[in-house]
């Protein structure tokens, strides 16, 4: 049952921006930077979500996931590979023997404009192919027209279809317009069974932003205080530099703290972030920035 959404906290946009700017002013250097970057690498959902994705492309990406940069020993691998349902089988096979998860988008990604039946079939297909995690989208149209129960029921049904797979619920915050809406959608997602809440599909601008992520982290915090249950967070889209990823990590560190600082509770949905993180890690090791040509692009 969905709780009374009129009683949830409200947000002051300027106040949230001010708070976020303070996270961005933290100076992360030397060993704390290396530690942060390694954490970030281990939290990445390496993503390819294109119509032109092929078996070859996905297999290459999976190899990259397992061998981010062999020149640097003892690097963590990324957390997961994120693909369309049709590529789940390929990825699963390519990642055999590693601990890297396969995440699949589902439910008529990215718009979600289809029937519940199609969405459930989509989900079951992905899970049957071997997906460990399902990234679903909510029905933003229904949400914006105030039909919160519809959104709630839909997420609950997808959660059931997921079985043992973890469910990440994409709010597509770029289409929700206000921070209060982001809070409301986060509440609905968490109450209907989300294991993770996720900002964006990456197909709509703006994708993840620091203020939006802040509101979602704050929702997770309140939920933990109320129920003792930990929900994960995944900002996705537009986080392509180490510097920005470190801003997110600082925010996570200071809002939710130690318990959330791992891949079980925090992920970055990104495609090009990994190489920038690797470049920074090599720099901290050798003292020099290397050319981008030294980092494999898969």
């Amino acid at each position: 049952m969905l709780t009374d959404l009129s009683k949830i906290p409200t947000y002051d946009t300027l106040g949230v921006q001010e708070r976020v700017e303070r996270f961005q002013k933290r100076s992360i250097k030397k060993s704390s930077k290396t530690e942060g970057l390694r954490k970030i690498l281990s939290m990445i959902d390496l993503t390819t979500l294109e119509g032109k994705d092929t078996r070859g492309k996905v297999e290459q990406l999976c190899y990259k996931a397992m061998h981010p940069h062999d020149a640097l020993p003892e690097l963590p691998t990324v957390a997961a590979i994120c693909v369309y349902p049709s590529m789940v089988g390929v990825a699963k096979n390519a990642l055999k023997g590693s601990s890297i998860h396969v995440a699949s988008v589902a439910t008529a990604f990215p718009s979600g404009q289809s029937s519940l039946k199609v969405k459930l079939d989509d989900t079951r297909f992905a899970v049957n192919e071997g997906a460990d995690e399902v990234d679903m989208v909510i029905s933003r149209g229904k949400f914006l027209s105030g039909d919160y129960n519809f959104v709630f029921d839909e997420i609950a049904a997808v959660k059931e279809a997921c079985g043992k797979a973890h469910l990440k619920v994409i709010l597509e915050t770029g289409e929700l317009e206000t921070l209060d809406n982001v809070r409301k959608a986060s509440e609905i997602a968490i109450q209907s069974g989300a294991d993770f809440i996720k900002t964006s599909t990456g197909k709509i601008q703006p994708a993840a932003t620091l203020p939006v992520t802040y509101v979602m982290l704050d929702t997770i915090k309140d939920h933990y205080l109320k129920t003792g249950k930990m929900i994960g967070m995944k900002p996705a889209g537009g986080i392509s530099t180490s510097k920005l990823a470190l801003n997110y990590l600082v925010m996570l560190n200071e809002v939710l703290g130690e318990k959330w600082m791992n891949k079980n509770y925090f992920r970055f949905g990104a495609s090009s972030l990994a190489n920038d993180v690797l470049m920074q890690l090599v720099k901290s090791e050798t003292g020099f920035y290397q050319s981008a040509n030294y980092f494999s692009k898969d």
Partner: protein
Amino acid sequence: MTKRKNPFAASWTYEPAPESTDHIQIKKKYDLFINGEFIKPQNNKYFETVNPANDEKIAEVALAESEDVNKAVKAARNAFKGWSALEPKERGKYIYRIARLIQERAREFAVIESLDGGKPIRESRDIDIPLAANHFFYYAGWADKLEYAFPNRKAKPLGVAGQIIPWNFPLLMAAWKLAPALATGNTVVLKPAETTPLTALKLAEIIRDSGIPKGVVNIITGAGKTGAEIVNHPDIDKISFTGSTAVGKYIQKAVAGTPKKITLELGGKSANIIFEDAAIDQAVNGVIDAIFFNQGHVCCAGSRLFIQESVADTVIQKLKDRMSTLIVGDPLDKNTDIGAINSKRQLKTIENYIKIGINEGGEIYQTDCKLPKKGNWCAPTLFLNLSQSHKIVQEEIFGPVLAIQTFRTIDEVVEKANNTPYGLAAGVWTQKGAKIFYLTQKLKAGVIWANTFNKFDATSPFGGYKESGFGREGGLHGLKPYVKFE
């Protein structure tokens, strides 16, 4: 003291990121800036200024005594004729030049401000120094537009202004006082506080380099006795003071019966009010900024918090969690949120108030942050279970100590918020616009912030009601205390 384990405690600690001090220049010894040059004090006496974060001596500074004050006032008096007769746009030109020179040396000023005063470099870098430059830019613009500031009236400068500034925002307060005085054609004798004289003395170098006529600005250093010499000097036309209410009262008595004009910007015990319909998380963050900004050494600090009872538990829990993320330590570290207490004397005052609060039965909460061994430090502190009758609710502490009370209705909180001899600032946290307008009419405070706190701008007037002082600084209003009308 109640302890609460923060379930959201951070584990990733940030390695120290100190701002470099290689680029700054501090002389071993500073003389008095009188008539455009640095000269030795008559009696050759000097005092030390120390770094409050480690008790190390930074420099020696001249002690101005009565002959030195005489000399400075005389220089200002001699310069007045030429400066006030100067074409206004020329006056503006010099003030612009000072503003630009501050900007050019912003980094150096920021580091020295933090070294000498103990405030975090993030604040001196992002707030103090840019705002100081802004004040000079803003009032430079007014210099040749005074007829528009005071339509159909002829504004004339007062003469020689004696300006005494506090130790909490050393350069910024110097800018607040110098810029409007110069723009309106006055000459100045300025005295920085004895614990934080260095940025004012660096400013003296900039003023010398700006080529402004000799004697227009004189900067002399010393403690309360030097200040008293300025206040009581017969050839001064205007006293502008920012500091404690006790000294303000002394000054008002001292100038009574003289033709001296006076502006006082004194203490405060400003109320911050959180209603149940506020954006609670932002309100909590705002309360933190309101009381812990500059270690609470802020005259308009939101040192009394009123929380509506229906949300009191939530707010207090969130406040405690948020407090535990504050980094207290080296003022020069870019990650420091709360720096060093400005002086041993102030630390004693704060510690004394904390003792009083405990003895009066207040419930104290402090975070268990590690404080450095050397220097002056005070952990961020909350007091709960207080009433209007508690001393720590009534008196200005001027440190990182927040007194929390709860309330039930809007009229109750208005009455309590106004139930103080002070009236400098107030903060209101609610998402209801109508409530904000209602409160701005009812609260007796010079500045009222809605859903924010401690925001300053050169264009915006600042000043108090009741024992928080009179006269305004900043904005168009800031010109008026430095002119008379024909």
